[in-house]
């Protein structure tokens, strides 16, 4: 069975982001970029499944401009077997990503499609659900535990939901999106980095896949949330009562 994992190149989680002066978006020039943390977890899960003998190949997929190949290289260094890069302009919306993924799935025929639950730059949490609907596949989102049964061709997924944990049984092929507690991604070791240099990366364009990339959304403005105002230290209970009465009007 093949496993396909979609990974996204985003601003590194630990970076303090800044808004561009023209308020059109977040500053990404000269800022450290890395693989989306949830995508790392997705890839780690795929690698674990492969190591347990239930899959024979892990394919990492990414979409975007040419610098996205860095993320694919990271994926290959972690242990993916090959990579696919779909060249496109920046900022693909989840629906476009899902449509491209659908075409790739038709080409590669994986038994499992694993994605991160959301990307940390747009926090959409939509791609996994959309691709499952487009393919007509079952979906197990916010997975915190995944167990595969090869003979029965089912995946048992524990989902993290508001009320606790929900366990679902999905027939393969299926879509799984990963949540934080699923696993701890491995480090890229030097021998693997060396091997990654010779692993193949196939390039596609959306035209080759017969997908029209159009966005129905337009970002109007990006602004920072209002800064927290400093508190005031009061010196007595009387002053507190006075402020609550006359300034805050709560008593």
């Amino acid at each position, binding site marked *: 069975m093949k496993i396909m994992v979609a990974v996204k190149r985003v601003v590194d*989680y630990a970076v303090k982001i800044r808004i561009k002066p023209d308020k059109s978006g977040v500053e990404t020039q*000269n*800022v*450290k970029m*890395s693989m989306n943390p949830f995508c790392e977890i997705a890839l780690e899960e795929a690698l674990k499944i492969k190591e347990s003998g239930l899959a024979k190949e892990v394919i990492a997929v990414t979409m975007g401009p040419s610098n996205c190949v860095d993320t694919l290289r990271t994926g290959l260094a972690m242990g993916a077997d090959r990579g696919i890069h779909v060249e496109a302009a920046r900022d693909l919306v989840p629906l476009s990503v899902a449509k491209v993924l659908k075409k790739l799935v038709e080409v590669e025929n994986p038994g499992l499609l694993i994605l991160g639950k959301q990307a940390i730059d747009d926090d959409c949490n939509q791609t996994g659900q959309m691709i499952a609907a487009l393919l007509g596949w079952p979906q197990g989102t916010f997975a915190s535990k995944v167990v595969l049964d090869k003979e029965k061709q089912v995946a048992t997924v524990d989902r993290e939901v508001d009320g606790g944990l929900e366990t679902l049984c999905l027939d393969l092929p299926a879509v799984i999106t990963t949540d934080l507690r699923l696993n701890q991604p491995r*480090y890229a070791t*030097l021998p693997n*980095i060396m091997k990654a240099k010779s692993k193949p990366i196939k390039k596609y364009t959306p035209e080759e896949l017969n997908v029209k990339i159009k966005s129905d959304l337009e970002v109007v403005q990006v602004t920072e949330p209002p800064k927290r105002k400093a508190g005031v230290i009061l010196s007595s209970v009387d002053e507190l009562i006075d402020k609550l009465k006359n300034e805050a009007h709560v008593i």
Partner: protein
Amino acid sequence: MEKWRATTNLRRSLKSILNRQLKFRYLNGKRSCQSSFNLIRDCKSLGQVNAIQHRCFSSASTLVQRNPSFSTLNSDDISYFKGLLGEKSVIQDEDRLETVNTDWMHKYKGSSKLLLLPRSTEEVAQILRYCNSRCLAVVPQGGNTGLVGGSVPVFDEVIVNVSSMNNIISFDKVSGILVCEAGCILENLISFLDNQGFIMPLDLGAKGSCQIGGNVSTNAGGLRLVRYGSLHGNVLGLEAVLANGDVLDMLGTLRKDNTGYDLKHLFIGSEGSLGIVTKVSILTPPKLSSVNIAFLACNDYSSCQKLLMEAKRKLGEILSAFEFLDTEAMNLVLHQLDGVRNPLPASMHNFYILIETTGSDESYNREKLEAFLLSSMEGGLISDGVLAQDINQASSFWRIREGVPEALMKAGAVYKYDLSLPVEKMYDLVDDMRIRLGDLATVVGYGHLGDGNLHLNVSAPEYDDKILEQIEPYVYEWTSKHRGSISAEHGLGLMKANKIYYSKSTETVQTMASIKKLLDPNGILNPYKVLPHSLNS
């Protein structure tokens, strides 16, 4: 000789004994280590922090007596200070005094009765002028993270803590020159500079608590010295207050200024014994966007050395840190700290090296680092390694290296040594100590290999004189034989006050004593520390 007096004191209240423990032993000049040690262990239940040993003093040669020429505090002094600083800045509360009297390692405890919190240079000057006239001993204090007992009183010295002086005065975005008060916490300065696109030229594990005044006064080294050099190069100016209250304004912001003797260098590294630093002007390097970090394993120490040579040659200008830890250090960290995982779990290797590169071009630097690592691997210098893929992974590597001191504290008693040695010989000392100590204790070696700085730590479940005998003076003599420094970056403080001759000649030390006498004739600034006690008279 004085054992009967020991037992008399033991009958008094436990609390006052805890405070007088050190004082008593100094006064009577006899080592009653065993009995008082057991007493301190029993006092653990007195609400002291668990699992941390309160330790009594090291070898007999460092016993010191309270200098009788220092006055004792009286109520007039307290009134004066209250009038000068206001009630809030004059602390006599026992609980707060408890904290400031004890050092970070809980190894040294003084018995000061007064903590002062000045908010400006003028207040510091007036405090010192008064103390000088009254002959009251003073301990300058900042973040209290020093490791040689230099930041806490030995007896009842007045503690002058500059934590309230924590303003950033100015920052020049073009030149990167930062002017700030001595009480600014290093981590806060790093965050401030981060927003401006700059970084501090020094970085240490203690950054969350240590203050820049203390860093400058101790000439702190840290993790980035191999790239940015020492504070002697980065500090452009400082303002210090002398013992008699005179304010020396040397707060220049010029890169070049050859007018007269450059006195600021006296204050950098003199550990508060020549003056209290109140403001610092420091040159900060720009923050470069591409930081890469690798965690590597080597089989033996000679590979580590060769790796260092190769790194300096091949990585050249982008190398920003080169640290090492041995397998015992790694074990300790994995055992004692939470949330730390071994990046190279396949097997326990003998040595671990952490290499960090900082540059401006991400892809170029990454390629350079990868090429260097792969060629080192092919050449057999590294047996395994990982490259951090994002900032989180990078922080986890640093957590391992920066967490070693913390892990050592948690493991029980620790004897800490900080030595500068020729790189080829560095690990021989660790091996020698292992042979000497055998099963008595675990010897851990780690440090700034890039600077030739070894942090030799001996970890044991409890403090024991048998262990100490095997360590001192052997370690100092070994270092001296190889013309190394017995204190690479920690300073002398109280711990090594009498050990300076292992690394400096008699004439040099005499000249130091003359300078001390010139700038502080009454000897009130941080007494009993830095220079040998025999020179104070």
